[in-house]
C-alpha cells in the first residue's frame, strides 16, 4: 500500500509542478491568445473586451488557482481558440477526446509493428552465427537509428505515397468515418514511427539474449538434451525479454505522449499536432491539459512497466 501511495503522491507532485511551470511559461512568452485571435486587427478596446470575455483580466495567481480548482473538480475548461459552434468554445475534454484516439491508434499500430518485427528480428539476429549477416544487421539498424524522424517521414511519404501510390498523403480518413480506412492510412505514419524503434528494440533484445545465453541455466538446459531452438525460445527469450519490457514501456510512453513530428508530416489530427498549434496560438487551457496528460502518461506507463515487471519476473514479485 505504501508503495502505491508513494507513487500517487509523486504523480500529484509532478503534475502540480508541471502545471505551475507551464503557467509560468505562458506568463513569460510574448503574445497571448488575444493577440493571436485579433492579429493585426487588434484595437485596445477589442483586446480588452476579449480579455474580459476569456477571464484574462484577472491577476495571474487568481487565474492559476481558479484554473487548478476547476481541473481538480474535473472541469478542464474550454479552449480559447477553437469554437464548438457559433456561441460556444470547444471544451478541452471534447477537443482532446477527439484527437486522442488518433494518437492512441497510431501508438497501437506502431507498437504492433515493433513487436511483430523487432522481436523475431532480435531473436534471429542473436541466434545467427553468420558474421556477415551480423555486420549487415548491425549497420542496418545503426542506419535506421540515424535517420532524422521528419526526414524519415518525408521519405516514407515520398516512397509509399507519391512513387508507389499505396496511400494518398494527407488523405487521412477519420476513425469515425471508417475505422479500417483510418488504420490503412495510419500504417504509414506508424512505419515512420516504428523504424528507428524496431532497430533499437532488435539491438537491445539481441544483446540481452546474448548476455542471457552465457548464463548458467542455459548450460543446464543444454545438459538436459534440449535443442538449440528450444533453449533459445523456451529459456533464453523469456529471460531476455525482461529488460526489453522496460525498454518497450519507455517507447510506449514516448509514442502515447504524441509523435509530434510524424503527426505534422502526415497531417494527422492527433494530440502532438494539437499541442504544437495550441502553443503557437497561445491556447493556454489546451496546452496545460495536454502537458498534464503527457506527464500523466509518462509516469503512469513507467509505473505500469514497473508493476508488469514485478508480475512477469517472479524474482521481484515474491521477494
Amino acid at each position, binding site marked *: 500500500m*505504501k508503495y502505491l501511495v508513494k507513487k500517487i503522491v509523486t504523480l500529484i507532485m509532478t503534475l502540480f509542478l508541471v502545471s505551475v511551470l507551464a503557467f509560468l511559461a505562458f506568463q513569460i512568452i510574448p503574445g497571448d491568445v488575444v493577440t493571436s485571435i485579433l492579429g493585426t486587427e487588434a484595437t485596445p478596446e477589442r483586446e480588452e473586451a476579449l480579455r474580459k470575455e476569456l477571464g484574462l483580466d484577472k491577476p495571474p495567481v487568481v487565474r492559476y488557482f481558479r484554473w487548478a480548482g476547476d481541473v481538480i473538480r474535473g472541469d478542464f475548461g474550454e479552449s480559447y481558440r477553437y469554437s464548438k459552434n457559433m456561441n460556444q468554445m470547444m471544451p478541452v475534454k471534447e477537443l482532446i477526446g477527439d484527437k486522442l484516439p488518433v494518437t492512441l491508434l497510431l501508438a497501437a499500430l506502431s507498437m504492433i509493428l515493433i513487436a511483430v518485427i523487432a522481436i523475431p528480428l532480435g531473436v534471429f539476429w542473436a541466434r545467427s552465427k553468420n558474421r556477415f549477416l551480423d555486420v549487415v544487421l548491425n549497420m542496418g539498424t545503426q542506419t535506421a537509428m540515424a535517420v532524422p524522424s521528419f526526414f524519415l517521414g518525408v521519405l516514407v511519404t515520398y516512397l509509399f505515397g507519391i512513387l508507389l501510390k499505396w496511400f494518398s498523403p494527407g488523405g487521412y480518413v477519420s476513425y469515425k468515418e471508417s475505422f479500417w480506412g483510418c488504420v490503412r492510412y495510419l500504417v504509414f505514419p506508424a512505419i515512420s514511427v516504428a523504424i528507428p524503434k524496431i532497430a533499437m528494440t532488435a539491438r537491445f533484445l539481441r544483446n540481452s539474449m546474448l548476455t542471457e545465453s552465457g548464463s548458467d541455466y542455459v548450460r543446464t*538446459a*543444454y545438459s538436459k*538434451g*534440449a535443442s538449440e531452438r528450444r533453449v533459445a525460445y523456451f529459456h533464453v527469450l*523469456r529471460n531476455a525479454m525482461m529488460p526489453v519490457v522496460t525498454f518497450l514501456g519507455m517507447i510506449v510512453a514516448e509514442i502515447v505522449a504524441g509523435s509530434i513530428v510524424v503527426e505534422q508530416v502526415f497531417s494527422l489530427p492527433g494530440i502532438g499536432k494539437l499541442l504544437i498549434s495550441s502553443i503557437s496560438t497561445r491556447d493556454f487551457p489546451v496546452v496545460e491539459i495536454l502537458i498534464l496528460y503527457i506527464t500523466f502518461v509518462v509516469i503512469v506507463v513507467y509505473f505500469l512497466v514497473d508493476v508488469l515487471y514485478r508480475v512477469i519476473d*517472479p*524474482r521481484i514479485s515474491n521477494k
Partner: protein
Amino acid sequence: MIKIKHLSVAFDGPEVVKDVSFEIGDGEILGVVGESGSGKSVTALTLMGLVAETARVTSGKIYYDDQLLLEAGVPRNTALYREYQGQKMSMVFQEPMTSLNPTMKVGAQVEEVLILHDRQGSSIETKKESKAPEAKKGLAGWHQRQREEKERRKARVLDALRGVGLRDVERVYDCYPHQLSGGMRQRVMIAMAVILHPGLIIADEPTTALDVTVQNQIIDLLKKINQEQKNSLLFITHDLNLARRLCDRILVMQDGCIVEEGITEEIFSDPRGEYTKKLISAVPGRTGKKKSTHQKLKEAQREKGDGKKQELKPLVEVRDLNVSYRENANSLFGKTIKKTVVQNATFDLYEGEILGLVGESGCGKTTLSKAILGLNKMVEGSIIHHSNSPQMVFQDPYSSLNPSKTIGWLLQEPLRAQGILDPSKAMTEKDRVAAAYDMLHKVGLKDKYFTRRPSQLSGGQRQRISIGQALITRPGLVIADEPVSALDVTIQAQILDLIRSLQEELKTAFLFISHDINVIYQVSDRIMVMKDGRILEIGDTEEIFRNPKDPYTKELLR
C-alpha cells in the same frame, strides 16, 4: 563405461586440456581434483558435449559404452548428444543460484527432462491407451491424453524431488528457484540429473557455493544416489578433503594434464607428484600449535627487551550491539519491517591480534564488521574505537579495486586521502610513489604491475593489492571479509601467509572473517563463532579447537 582417449581441447589460444585419457567404471565415483584453470571443467563439459562453440577438440576420442560420442576433427553430433544428455548422462553444476532458470517454476524445469526424453516411453503408453475402448478420439481425446500424461509426469517429478530429500514437494514443485535456499536448489539440480537414472552423473563442484553443514548433506546425498542407482559419478572439485570423503579413485589435474591418478587413500598416504604434495599441504589443516594473543604479546615484549609490563589494550570495544535494517516485506503494498541481523554482540578486539570470526553465510558477520566500521546506520549499543581509520579487504577481488585506475594510482590513493585529511601527513609525489612501490614489493608483486590495471591481474594478485592498499597507511585495524574465499587453494595459502607475515611486521590488528574454520584456524590468534546474529563463543584458537563448548562449533569442526 566411459573411455576418454588422448583428449585435447583448445580455445583460441593454446590447448587447455592436453592429451587426457581416463576411464570411468560402472558405478564408480571418480574424483577430478585441480585448481581453477587446470582443465578439469573443460574436460567434463567436453564429455557432456556442453563445451563452448569456440572450443576445438584437437585430438582424442570419447566413448560411452563403446559408442563413439566424439572424435577430434569430426563436428559434434548434436542429435546423438541430445539423446544422451539428460537421459544417459547428466550434470550438476556449481552455482545453484544461477543454474536454474529464474523465470521457470522448479517443477517445470525438472519435468522438461521428461518431456525431452520421454518420447519412446510415452508413445508406447499412448498406443496402449488408444486401444482401450474408453479412449476418446479427436481433439477431446487428445486433450485428455495430454492431461493424463501431464499428471503422470508430475507424479514422477514429485517422486524424484522426494528422492533427493526434499520435503513438502508439492510446494517446491510450484516454486520459483529464488524461493528456495541454495541447498534446496542444489537438490533440485540433482533431482533433475537423476530422474531418468542416467549411467553417468557429472558433478562439477556441486558443494563449493554452499555452507559447510549443507555441503555435508549434499555429499551424503550423492553417495546415497550412487549406491541406489548404481550409476557412475564424475566428481569435480578443488577440495581434496571432499574428494577424499566421496571418491573411489582420484585424478589430479594441473595445467590441462593429468599429473596423478590412483585410489583415493593411496594418493593421500603416498602422493607421488610434486604438485599433488603441494596441493595436499596447501589444504588448510589444523596442524601446528597456535599461540594465543596473550602469548604473542609476551613474545613481543621479550623482543623489545624492556621489562615494562604491558596490558592487552583493547582496540575496539563492542558492547550490546544490535544491528538491523529495514526490509520491504511485500513489494507492492508492503510495510517496511525492521529486521535485526546482529543481536547483543559484546566483545573486545585487542591491539596487534588477529581475531577470527567464523560463521555461515547470513549469520551476520559482514553486517557486524560494517557496523564496526561505521558503515551501517541502524545500530544500537556501543562501539568504542581506539584505532584510527580502520580499513577493509573484501571477498571479491574483482569488485574491490576500482577498475578504471592503475595499480600505482590505487596504492597511492590512501596516502593522498590521508594527506588531504591531515596536512601534517601529506607526502610529496615522489615519496608517495616510493611508498607505493615499497608496498607493491611487500605484497609480493613486481614493479611492472605498477602501471597495470586491475583487469590485467589475477584474482590472487588483486587480493594482494587490496591488502597492500589497506595497509599502506599503517592503520591500527584491518577488517578482512572472506579475503581468500574466492581463491584457489594454493593461492589461498599464499595470501594467508602474506597476511600473517605482514601482520607480524606491521603489528596491525585484523578482524578476519571466514566461513571456513580451517582458514580461520590457520590465521587467527583468537576465534569468535557466530550463528544467526549471535556470538556463540569467543576464545583463543587452540582453546576453541580443542575444547569447543557450543554444539554448533562442534558441527563446524566436524
